[in-house]
């Protein structure tokens, strides 16, 4: 018996999808910042995915994922009504949320989904939430409507300038911080280079900066140490000590090296998958 996919939405066809999954026990406990570990089938690997939203009454959680390798490609082939064999969670420490003032939530790419859950948490706590989202082009900007629903300010940056600022989110962020000295925290979730750049921008302003680390994980419950990262010179486990850490203290170059550990094996797996997969002609 697995966990049923109640709704599937292809946010960016073939690339990013959203699943609403029937998981009442996880929904009951899920907080912004938490993640789940899923395993698609008997032969599957355990992969961590951030919880993008939950509905306690309906007993569902929402995940959004980017197709990056074999497992996520296979996940994207599942349809409404299909089951995911294992969904384990909610894992990790929840985002520390308190009423504090103005919080800028920066999201990049698929990270916008996870950021959305945290932004919502900050908004529910009574903070003034500024959402700042970035992507290559306009139609890759996820959750814009949802963020517009509660954020008084939604700022946008695209690489091609199709909407909002043409360029990086960091440029918009810097400008915003220069204009507003009341920002109490910046939260950044997205590709590692983006989070690293955000931390670099905020540092001179002395603004508390929280990043969410997407380390490689196996069990996700503190047992293996695969997700370890250096924060302030100390080894931390992203799965139990995090996944959120002080962005000014994270050793991003170590994180990047560790994220690429299994590149060769991932390519091998993807190659085999593409060769064998005849289920849809995409």
């Amino acid at each position, binding site marked *: 018996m697995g966990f049923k996919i109640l709704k599937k939405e292809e946010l960016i066809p073939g690339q990013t999808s959203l699943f609403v999954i029937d998981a009442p026990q996880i929904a009951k406990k899920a907080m912004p910042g938490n993640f789940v570990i899923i395993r698609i089938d008997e032969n599957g690997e355990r992969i961590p995915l951030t919880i993008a939203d939950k509905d306690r009454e309906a007993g569902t959680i929402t995940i959004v994922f980017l197709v990056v390798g074999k497992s996520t490609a296979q996940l994207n082939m599942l349809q409404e009504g299909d089951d995911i064999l294992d969904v*384990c969670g909610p894992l990790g420490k929840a985002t520390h949320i308190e009423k504090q003032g103005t919080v800028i939530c920066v999201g990049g790419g698929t990270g916008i989904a996870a950021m959305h859950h945290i932004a919502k948490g900050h908004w529910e706590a009574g903070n003034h939430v500024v959402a700042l989202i970035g992507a290559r082009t306009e139609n890759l900007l996820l959750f814009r409507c949802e963020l517009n629903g509660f954020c008084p300010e939604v700022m946008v940056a695209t690489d091609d300038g199709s909407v909002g600022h043409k360029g990086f989110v960091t440029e918009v962020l810097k400008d915003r911080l220069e204009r507003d000295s009341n920002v109490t925290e910046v939260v950044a979730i997205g590709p590692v280079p983006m989070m690293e750049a955000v931390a670099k921008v905020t540092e001179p302003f002395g603004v508390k900066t929280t990043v969410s680390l997407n380390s490689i994980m*196996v069990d996700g419950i503190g047992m*293996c*140490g695969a997700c370890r990262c250096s924060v302030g010179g100390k*080894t931390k486990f992203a799965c139990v000590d995090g996944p959120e850490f002080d962005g000014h203290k994270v050793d991003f170059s170590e994180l990047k090296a560790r994220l690429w*550990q299994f590149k060769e094996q991932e390519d091998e797996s993807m190659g085999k998958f593409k060769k064998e997969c005849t289920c849809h002609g995409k």
Partner: protein
Amino acid sequence: MENKPRKPADIGPRIPMPEQPADERVRNFSEVTLGFTLDQAVEEAERCLQCKKPLCQKGCPVEIDIKSFIAKLVDKDVSGAYEVIRKTNSLPAVCGRVCPQESQCEGMCILGKKNEPVAIGRLERYIADAFMASDACEEITGTHECALVREDLQVACIGAGPASLTVAGYLASKGIKVTLFEGLHEPGGVLIYGIPEFRLPKSIVGREVNALKDLGVEIRTNWVGGKTITIQDLQDEGYDAIFIGVGAGLPRFLNIPGDNLVGVFSANEYLTRVNLGRAYDFPNYDTPTFKANDVVVIGGGNVAMDAARTAKRMGAERVSIVYRRTQDEMPARLEELHHAIEEGIEIRALCGPLAFNPGESGRLETMTVQKMCLGEPDDSGRRSPVCIEGETEEIPCDMAVVAVGTRPNPILLEATPDLELNKWGYIAADPETGETSMENVFAGGDIVTGAATVISAMGAGRRAAQEIAKRLL
């Protein structure tokens, strides 16, 4: 059995147990030792002196009535022998394979003073295997014999490793409804993610777990204690008692330069990838691990042996074990150490880790070790390693596996602030009853003692289960 008393000197050597030849087994993940035939088992059983006061039983953490089961085996009554074992041990096929018998039952065997002790572990394994393969299984584990008689009494176990499995087996056989909450996707704990297939086939663990299901035990996987469900939730749901058996937890690293380099694994990660994730069958299974040629494993316990032997089977050309003391001080089971050496694993004794060094690629390329010699005994009674100033060595390696123990996992403990901990950060529990600072909450196994053996966790589970049964029934 003959009635006239026999002397240890009159008894022949142990019956050897067949095993796969070393050069063959390093290329597969099949079980190394092949087990006795009935004739071999009976012949070995006949070596038992049937002592009036059997010390072997005292040496067993779950106090199996060893003498009686051996007597039944001599009479070829395998079912009878199994029944004796199952009275105190719900995982005999596991214990027969992984217990450190030389320091427990067999270590106490009188025969061992002048001769080789009776191969109690191998007999236990034979009985469990033979019995499980026969139809007689239904007779003892079938629901008709052990139907739930007290649906009103409910016990929850957090974790589904050896300690909890023992609690479940004991209480379910008394008719109490037991539910196990397991964080991973498969029950068995260290028996599944840690101990490799070649030492303990997963099918054996599966059979033991199924025997518990036959007793009416419910197992919920993907439930993380402290996250998906808390102690408070379980109390609110009306569980009459809760047993915490969540295991040893977080792996320790060496705190030396290069700890987090790509290529440095904890033994837990390496073994979990290979065992639980079946990385040995990648890419048919999706969990990857490195293909490494030069592997160093740091540590001297069973986990280090398992990691080293696994690396060999994963195709490494050269595997060495780096250990600060000498081979004699290694805490690993003798059998595992011998098997490892037979399989060509090099023991680099008296070497203390100094640093992991990256190559140009940024990945692990060498490890620097400090040469040691042995000094005075330390608190553990073992002679402590002392540095030989200025003598270091650089060992080439493209993978390092750190097997130097664990720390308590914080997940459940942080979620349960009322639970009192001891000075080492493990759960403070009464050694006799497993009782914790919280009412009707018990704990046992590695989360109380720190990393130990399967059988000691089972012993703790058994004591807690006895106490729970005493209170509930």
